[in-house]
């Protein structure tokens, strides 16, 4: 794997990553959480999140009151079996869905007060995504996929942006595949292109939803390593949702969920 000098150093002080059980969150209110986020220790904070799907007989409570702080510059894993609500939690934190109750603050912005267009713009500017599959648009090349968030923002893709895209691709080891379409890339290469795309806007949060679900163990290791290095070398806040213990082991903090609650 390439060890390159990052051209954009984040927090230069490389913090050793901490292992161990997750420390419970002290009970603070939203205002404090927001302030903390503004001060830079917490990238995102959620208080009292609830979300229920369906009505009547088929009602499924996905989140039953979740409080969470996501530390800045760290790699956090949200773990749990299927149906534990981890994907729902991620969707609410990322602004992909609205919780039924509770509040979410990301980078000092209170999400629950934003309308749909504002949420969309928020995502564009502050969040990056890597999914388990269907990460890339099949009819665009890798380079075009990486630059997609900038284009959607209506910005003209200038040379600086293209250079940054190329640099990210080099760091991730897919620089020679930039002109290829996703169908011509392996699973691991696709995920790495997705990570590059997630990083191009320098987001406050990078969310990864089961990023290694479809990959073999060697490729999984590569991808997880890239995610970890994004956090440690680029100062990126990375949140990964997974059901795989081995994958969660790469994270600095692990949050475990069961039946819609953090345990």
């Amino acid at each position, binding site marked *: 794997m390439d060890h390159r000098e990052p051209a954009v150093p984040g927090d230069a002080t490389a913090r050793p990553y901490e292992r161990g059980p997750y420390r419970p969150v002290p009970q603070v209110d939203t205002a404090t959480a927001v302030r903390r986020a503004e001060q830079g220790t917490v990238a995102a904070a959620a208080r009292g999140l609830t979300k229920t799907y369906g009505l009547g007989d088929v009602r499924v409570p996905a989140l039953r009151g979740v409080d969470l702080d996501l530390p800045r510059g760290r790699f956090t894993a949200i773990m749990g079996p299927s149906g534990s609500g981890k994907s729902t939690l991620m969707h609410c934190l990322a602004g*992909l869905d609205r919780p039924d109750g509770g509040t979410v603050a990301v980078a000092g912005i209170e999400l629950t007060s934003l309308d749909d267009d504002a949420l*969309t713009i928020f*995502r564009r*500017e502050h969040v990056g*995504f890597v999914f388990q599959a*269907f990460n890339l*648009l099949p*009819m665009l090349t890798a380079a075009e996929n990486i630059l997609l968030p900038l284009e959607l923002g209506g910005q003209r893709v200038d040379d600086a942006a293209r250079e940054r895209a190329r640099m990210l691709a080099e760091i991730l080891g897919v620089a020679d595949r930039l002109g290829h379409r996703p169908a011509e890339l392996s699973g691991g290469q696709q995920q790495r292109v997705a990570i590059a795309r997630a990083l191009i806007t320098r987001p406050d949060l990078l969310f990864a939803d089961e990023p290694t679900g*479809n990959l073999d163990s060697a490729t999984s290791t590569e991808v997880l390593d890239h995610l970890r290095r994004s956090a440690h070398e680029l100062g990126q806040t990375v949140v990964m949702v997974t059901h795989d213990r081995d994958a969660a082991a790469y994270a600095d903090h692990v949050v475990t969920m069961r039946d819609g609650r953090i345990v």
Partner: protein
Amino acid sequence: MRTVFLASLRTHLRRHVAAVVAVATAVAFVVVVGVLTAGARAALIERLGAPYRNADLVVSPVGWPASHMKPEDVIAFAERLGENASAIGRASLPLRAGGRRIPEAGVGPISTVERWRWQPLESGRFAVRGGEAVADVHFALANDVSIGDRLVIGEGAAAAAVRVVGLVESPSPPAQADVYVTWPQLLRWRDRLHLGSVAVRGEAGTLPPGGKAQSPEAFAEERLTAVQNQVDSVRVMLLLFAGVAVFVAAVVVTNTFAILFAQRLRDFALLRCVGATRRQVARSVRLEAAAVGTFASLAGAVAGAALGYGLIAAIDLVAPDTPVVAAAPPPSWLLGGVAVGLVVTVAAAWSPTRRVLRVSPLAALRPDVAAGPRTGVGRARAALAVLPAAAGFALLAAAVMQHGVALMLAGGGALFAGVLLLGPVLVPRLIRLPIGLFGPTGRLAAENAARNPRRTATTAAALLVGVTLTTAALTGMATWRAALDEHIGGRHPIDLALTSAKGPVGADVLDRVRRTPGVERAIAVPGAVARVSGLDGPFPVVAAPAAAEVARDGGAFAQVEPGTIKIDFEAFRSGPGLRPGEQVTVRVGERQARLRVAAGSGWGPAGVVAPQTLAALTGTPEPHAVWVRAAPGADPARLGGDLDELADPIDATIENGLRTWESLDRQLSVLSWSVLGLLAVAIVIALIGVANTLGLSVLERVREHALLRALGLTRAGLRRTLAIEALLLSATATLLGTVLGVGFAWSGYETVIRPALREAAFHIPWPSLGAVVLATTLAGLLAAVLPARRAARVTPAAGLSFD
């Protein structure tokens, strides 16, 4: 498999909606054609049978039309039955009306008994005694006969004078005559009488020799063959248009099934894994198609019947003269329409089913099957598709050179087939052309449209057919009309001409002419009254440098060389008695000139000379003619009548050339609008296809759209992407279709029109074509509205977990 079949039918019903609508529309078209033609036939039979409406029997010759009954026998038979019989026929007699002699006019009987009077009264009253007559409306118009006129029928000893007391219509062709008199009056010419049938009430008794009795319905059916041809040719034309609609519907339905089945690949694969054989799955799918087709066809038949009868009612309100009535629904047409819809749907499902079943079950179950199979066209196939296109070009070139219509049709068909086959190669490239135009959303849209070449091409093909035919028809008709305009313009340059051979036409007359409703422009033409050797009586001679203001040929006819006098040969009922090229002496007062005669037509009994010639003949020219240009839509008969009133006091004559113009204009307009309306149906079906393709594609791309929304594309942005995709598709198809259509029209012009009308120029109706392009493109944009809203409504989270 029955539970699977029923369940999938229920689940996927919504996705079949567009296909149902397309097939139903085509079937409705066919049924409407059937209802209308049946209605036309029924109306014609009704009119034909008008004289026999109140009859129990009709007596007509056995072995008609070969044999006939002797008039004396028929007269005796009719006289015997008295009021219970009405003989139908006519005598061909010379007729004198207002100083004119018509050598052969048809004179028929009009009954004094209400029951047997079948001629509807237009104005005046019926003839009830000898010496009175009613004239057919069209005969009266053509021969300047009006109520109160005195006609002399017959010649010599058999002549009789009658007075016209009314005008009537003659709806029944076998019984038609120009003038109707009472039966006793008609018997005066019994030796010239030809009686084809007798309507009888009650018992007939002994029939005249050679006669047979039948019911009025049977009689009408027998006589219908003559009129049948009219109805038949219209029916064939309408069927052609229905055929186009059916073809377009077939394309849309095939595309729908292709997309739908590709989306259900997983389901089919699962069924096969679980144990269903290929044949079982195929049968279930085809049954589904048959169910959809049956429903669509039945719905279409019902809708078509309702629409057909509604149209007949509307026609009755708007143009009650048109021969069409609400007849019984024609069973063969209904069944035929339903059969066509069913066959089209089942046939359309055939190929997509086979393609889907060829995929191995496990391959379809793998999770990385992204949005639908990529369907491109191999190089070999593309090369093969160039052949018919090239052949088409060659055939068209040959057709143009040799003026062969068959060659042209073959060439056009081959070229079009080639373009359709090349579609998957051509269309995506064309769509990507304006790629920079709409920004990043535009690029996404273009890429989306181009990524599935065969599907995009098929959708575009449906629209292409409709647009090509419409633009070809528009251009062809515009060229033909322009050519005819010029042609007629040459023969009837002046709409109405008021000519005075006596005193000059005063300024007040000119003023009143100008103020007459329907007159667009009128000019006074200066001249003088002359005596021309070879012509009886005073003859006005005029010079008209300002003719271009009112003439339909730009004044060309009035540009006469000095030394020539141009005479309207048509203005003399039996010719002027002069020959073109002859030298005549024209005398005005003391002066005279020797001029050569040239022939022309369309401005009335006045000789046109060059201004120099007129100046040589008189120093004081006065207006002796007023030439009128009518406003569009002016009623020729009424305008002629109005101007007649103005002309009578000063003893001037009126030449009315407007009638020819007007009827031609009206016919062409009706034809144009009908063709456009019929083709519009095909275009509407094709646009349904665009909406359908887009809607189904949206279903495939739910995860992609969720990804885009997650990455930061707003809802409006997503809608915009889909709208641009639809816009690109319809704009490409429309523009390509317009180019093809104009090209085909040009080849038609070169092959058919130019040899016939040499001065005809190729005329491209830019405004109409622009309107078609704009309307179709905008409609394509509209087609995206519903799919786009549906796509934008899905939250990103829901879309990401979509399966």
